């Protein structure tokens, strides 16, 4: 399906005034008025800060991000803020793909490798694994970082999972990105494209591109958020060790 924003592509062949007019007409036609990009980002941060539960998926779409010798492919977390989460990781070890699960509940960390039952981790052991709940930390996570983007630019009105959203680009510092996830250790600025819901203002998607891959290589990470304030059940794992 072609997203509404992609209809703007023919603008490249139009003169700037005509392109601007066409953009306004097209955006108006899809029912979502253009937003001041800084306002959109600020509203996105505020809405995300107020979340109680959310499902977050992180996918590495370009480059390699390694932790503990595993190449991260994707991670999906059901998060109940402020401190409970159930995250499934898909990683590659050489060319073999495996998955494991980490549950954080009541201050305890539980780890379930493939085929086995849960065992408990110490906080130090758990810190070796990317914690997607950190994305929602009010001081260093998306609520704090997203509004602080430099050079915000409104790109288009778009749809994400059928929801009209503002697509905004911005630039973030390496320090800001590392605050989101310590495993994203960037060398230099990171470019981000962020989709903010038109009516609910939730951050629905973010694509980060920069030199935060292994050895500072170019990488791209896609963060998808859904299930805002939906019921999340995180059961206490049965421990075996």
């Amino acid at each position, binding site marked *: 399906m072609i997203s509404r924003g992609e209809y703007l592509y023919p603008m490249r062949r139009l003169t700037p005034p005509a392109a601007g007019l066409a953009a306004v007409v097209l955006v108006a036609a899809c029912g979502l008025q253009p937003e001041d990009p800084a306002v959109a980002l600020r509203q996105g941060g505020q809405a995300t800060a107020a979340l109680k539960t959310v499902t977050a998926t992180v996918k590495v779409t370009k480059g390699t991000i390694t932790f*503990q*010798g*595993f190449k991260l492919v994707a991670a999906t977390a059901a998060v109940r803020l402020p401190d409970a989460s159930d995250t499934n990781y*898909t990683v*590659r*070890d050489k*060319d*073999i*793909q*495996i*998955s*494991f699960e980490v549950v954080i509940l009541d201050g305890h960390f539980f*780890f379930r*490798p*493939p*085929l*086995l*039952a849960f*065992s408990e*981790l110490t906080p130090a*052991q758990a810190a*070796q*694994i990317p914690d997607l709940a950190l994305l929602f930390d009010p001081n260093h996570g998306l609520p704090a970082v997203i509004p602080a983007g430099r050079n915000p630019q409104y790109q288009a009105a778009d749809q994400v999972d059928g929801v009209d959203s503002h697509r905004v680009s911005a630039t973030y510092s390496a320090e800001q990105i590392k605050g989101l996830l310590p495993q994203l250790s960037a060398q230099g600025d990171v470019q981000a494209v962020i989709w903010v819901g038109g009516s609910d203002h939730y951050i629905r998607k973010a694509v980060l591109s920069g030199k935060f891959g292994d050895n500072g290589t170019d990488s791209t990470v896609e963060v998808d958020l859904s299930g805002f304030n939906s019921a999340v059940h995180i059961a206490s794992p049965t421990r*075996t*060790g």
Partner: protein
Amino acid sequence: MRLTAGVSRPVVLLGLAGAGLFVAATDAYVVVTLLPAMIADVGLTIDRLEQATPLISGFLAGYVVAMPLLGAYSDARGRAPVYAACMAIFAAGSLITATAGLLPGAGIVWLVTGRVLQGLGGGGLVPLTLALAADLYGGSGRTVAIGSVAGLQEAGSVFGPLYGAALATAAASLGSWRFVFLANVPLAAICAAGVLLGHRRLAPITAPHGTAIDWPSAVLLGAGLGLLVLALYPDDPANRAVGDLFVPAGAASLVLLGAYGWRQVRQLEPFIPRQLLRSAAFIGSSLANVLVGAALMVALVDVPILGRLVFNLDELDSGLLLTRLLVGVPVGALIGGVLSARIGLRVTALLGLACSALAFWQMSGWPAGELSLRLGPFRQADLALAACGLGFGVVISPLAAAVLNLARTETHGLASSLVVLARTLGMLAGLSALTAFGLHRFHQILGNPVVNDPTVRERVDHLARLVSAAFLQEYREIFAIAAVICLLAGLLALATLGPLPYRLAATANR
């Protein structure tokens, strides 16, 4: 359909058709060494290996369904157009397979669909190429041509794993495993175009008649095999060997396959006399071929996987490990041909299968460090694998000859495809059954160990060692079962095959 004598370059035409068949046959097991990378790229993890079995069983099911159908259909429609259509289906399946994981929603179902289409197209090529060989050659040349085509099919299937590993390694920067399937598209186009162009020069001396695809048979066979695969699918291998549908799907499968067999026997009777179809030699040879197919599948699939998961070999090295077995097959086939003529079919078949059984028995005791054990200048594992392949090669000739002996010369193509059909059916059933058994045993052996190492990495590495040990034990047991299957097939051959050697003249005059 008989073609006129004096055809221009029948060797080239048959060579092109055979090349296409060879390419299609290689794809049956080409995935064996590529499985971990393929399933990873469609989002599956290695602990759900059972979900990957349709990548092989789906191909085999398509292969087996198409094989008996298209020979008669091409009598009416012409060999070349039907051959080209099969190649187009095979190429389309290859393209779908190659693009799995690249497009939204193109996951495991997309991948399996591609593999089934590959099998349907590839399976159709077997009777078509055999029939083309019969069209192009007469007299004793026909038997040689048919034998060559059957040999190409066999060779393609056994060289597939190495071909896949070697090509994927060589094309690492061009898509790795995807390139293996993408390469099929131009190869299929060349073979199809060559057969179409070459065939135009050949005038049929009999007019096409109204034979069509036997759809009832197609439905019976397709549904029967589909239900068989479903019955043997291990939906919860951690807790049980077979799924919930084992009994109902298995019973329905037996009914449908029985009905298919009954229809086929009735249709074959004009070509092969009823008493021969019901003869002990025919039934024994067919059953032995089914068992050989199941045991051969163990070697073709489990040896490379053992190499990857237990011996920590990469794609290419696991494929190379299998070459020890593959080298034995053609050598054994030559020995089997000579022995069959000298000491008879039944003793030759028994010797071949006993050789494979002994090799499997030795393999059932392999330790984790097997690849470092030597016997003189050779690695012990290489000798066992070569002996296993040698035995499988030796048995090809007597089992095929037992069926060919029953058929008139002009139906040798049909008889040969029956041999391939029986073996492929055995491979399909063997793969499904042994996967179900193997994965269940794997979970039983692994149990519920506790890993409490200091770091996550160390815990996963510890688990990997436990998994490796469990896989090794599982494969040892499967090798022991394969040894028993080979012995059963050998005893069956001894009891049912005729004592007389295969005599070409006798069958040619029949």
